[in-house]
């Protein structure tokens, strides 16, 4: 076993030049394909814009996202009467610049999305690959557990977990991934079972590959595309769920700017200052829409059944 693990590690270690080259080549192919799909391309640009805004937040904003200015309370957007370019999208009930808070809010949303999808992908794919390859008791118990989790509606489950753990960034990630890995588990398990029956797996065994080597370096590269597509699509969902939890006061706590809690904070002033709730809502809508369109586009481009060589 130790020797086998050693061999697997060796092949893995020396296989980097392949992986890097494959990624390079796939990326090139992928970008060439993307140019032929204008809508996903546009969506991708929007997502990149969000990511850049989140990364550069302190550099591109003039105001503090936390400290208010009571003289600027409910300052209207620039194009409304009485508005000024100091507060392009207006200010909230504490006189904080909405645009600044939305840009800082992107950090929360993207971080939550990336972390929860990342952990779900790793945990779900690893367990699904093992269950689909080895079957047996491992598969039976994991699948039953997955079925059990699937029986709960996502949001209710997340609310329950958050109420139990208490609010906070780490707990939010935990609440999302606790159920989020299941989708990836089922996908990876199904793909693994389908791939395992193929002849190249038999050939790898004949060539002296160890089980772990077969899973990691033979089969996984063949299922990463579907996992990647599902990951993108789930990301939008996780971001919406985070916003819902923050809206309900269970997610990110004020004064940290999160879009969900910003929508909630502006709810009371909808009739007098509509912009306080509206713009964070638009920010969520645009990001999730862009991620989903991009994900759908990815599926069209990467799905081998739709691909014409």
């Amino acid at each position, binding site marked *: 076993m130790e020797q086998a693990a050693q061999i697997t590690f060796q092949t893995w270690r020396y296989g980097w030049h392949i992986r890097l*080259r494959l990624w390079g080549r796939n990326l090139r192919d992928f970008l060439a394909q993307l140019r032929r799909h204008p809508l996903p391309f546009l969506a991708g640009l929007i997502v990149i814009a969000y990511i850049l805004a989140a990364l550069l937040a302190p550099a591109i904003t003039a105001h503090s996202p936390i400290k208010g200015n009571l003289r600027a309370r409910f300052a209207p957007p620039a194009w409304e009467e009485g508005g000024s370019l100091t507060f392009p999208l207006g200010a909230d009930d504490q006189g904080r610049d909405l645009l600044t808070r939305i840009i800082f809010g992107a950090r929360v949303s993207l971080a939550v999305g990336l972390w929860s999808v990342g952990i779900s992908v790793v945990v779900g794919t690893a367990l699904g690959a093992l269950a689909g390859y080895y079957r047996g008791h491992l598969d039976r118990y994991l699948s039953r557990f997955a079925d059990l989790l699937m029986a709960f509606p996502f949001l209710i489950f997340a609310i329950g977990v958050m109420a139990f753990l208490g609010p906070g960034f780490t707990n939010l990630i935990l609440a999302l991934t606790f159920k989020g890995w299941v989708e990836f588990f089922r996908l990876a398990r199904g793909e693994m079972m389908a791939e395992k029956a*193929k002849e190249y797996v*038999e*050939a790898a065994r*004949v060539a*002296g*590959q160890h089980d772990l*080597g077969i899973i990691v370096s033979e089969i996984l*590269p063949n299922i990463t595309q579907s996992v990647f597509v599902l990951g993108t699509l789930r990301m939008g969902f996780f971001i919406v769920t985070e916003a819902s939890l923050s809206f309900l006061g269970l997610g990110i706590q004020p004064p940290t700017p999160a879009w969900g809690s910003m929508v909630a904070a502006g709810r009371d002033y909808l009739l007098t200052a509509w912009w306080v709730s509206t713009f964070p809502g638009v920010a969520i809508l645009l990001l999730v829409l862009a991620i989903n369109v991009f994900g759908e586009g990815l599926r069209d481009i990467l799905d081998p059944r739709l691909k014409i060589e």
Partner: protein
Amino acid sequence: MSDLLLRLQNLTTVFPTSRGTVTAVNDVNLTVREGEILGIVGESGCGKSATLLSILRLVARPGHITTGEIIFRDRDLRAASSAQMRTVRGKEIAMIFQDPLSTLNPAFPVGEQIGESLRLHGMLGRGLGPFAWGRRGRERRRVLELMAEVGIPSPAHRYAAYPHQFSGGMQQRALIAIGLACEPRLLLADEPTTALDVTIQAQILDLMRDINRNRGTAIILVTHDLGVAAEFCHTIAVMYAGRIVERGTVDQVICDPQHPYTQGLLACRPRLDRHEPIRPIPGEVPDLIDMPPGCAFHTRCGFARPECLGAEIPMSMSGDAHYVRCIRHTGYERHQALAKRVGLTG
């Protein structure tokens, strides 16, 4: 020919099913010498492929080997640990398959897949430093050599191509290159030319013959085509319903077939030089779960006698190592007399 490479002794492999036990490989004895080409011939489902997979101990579960020995270079593979088996597979015994496209991993360029078996069995030596300087270049050079050896034109251009960009013949050549990468002593070929058209088939067989001559690699070729076997092999074993029914050199088996099944196989081949009607063997292969007693072939045999239904028919030898499992065989009477004298029955 030189010394013994592989010896199968009373090898039996069974597959338990819900209806009963299928004995896919039944008491098989075979020998392969260094540099020999052995053909295993028979109809579909007679245990040819199961025999090959048994040699590598890769019979799909719940199938397993029940009895017998697999002696490869003086050691019993049945007693080897799974780690030892992994170093045998690919390094000492390589295998190529019927459908080359599905056997190649679709996610990797062909050159990398050839290189992988080199990496897997440590054929590249140690690299220098943390990034294994030098290994990369050595691997690429070796892969290009192999690709050239198996006749892939302009290997440098084909190195980074994916399997689906290769033609069927090129895919099979690539698979052979993967098999040869670690310079195995024995190559198992499971119907390597069945999925290819006839001209390519001849090229691949020529390639395998060259490999056999130049490298001295022994080959076990599984085929249902007696013509291919007659042209290509040194020795032939004919299998029927999990058993070997006739075994000998090509001349013995093809020119002087003794078992009615071998005779039947030869008679049902279309021939251009004689205007004889094709005579197919009547009937079908018996159900392996519900085997007839005695000789498994008696249900289809034109010479069947009541004695054929009795006890199992043993292998008997005539001439120079020509083994036949039939009571009509000239060696049979002698075998029985000998067995009686040493106190064995049956």
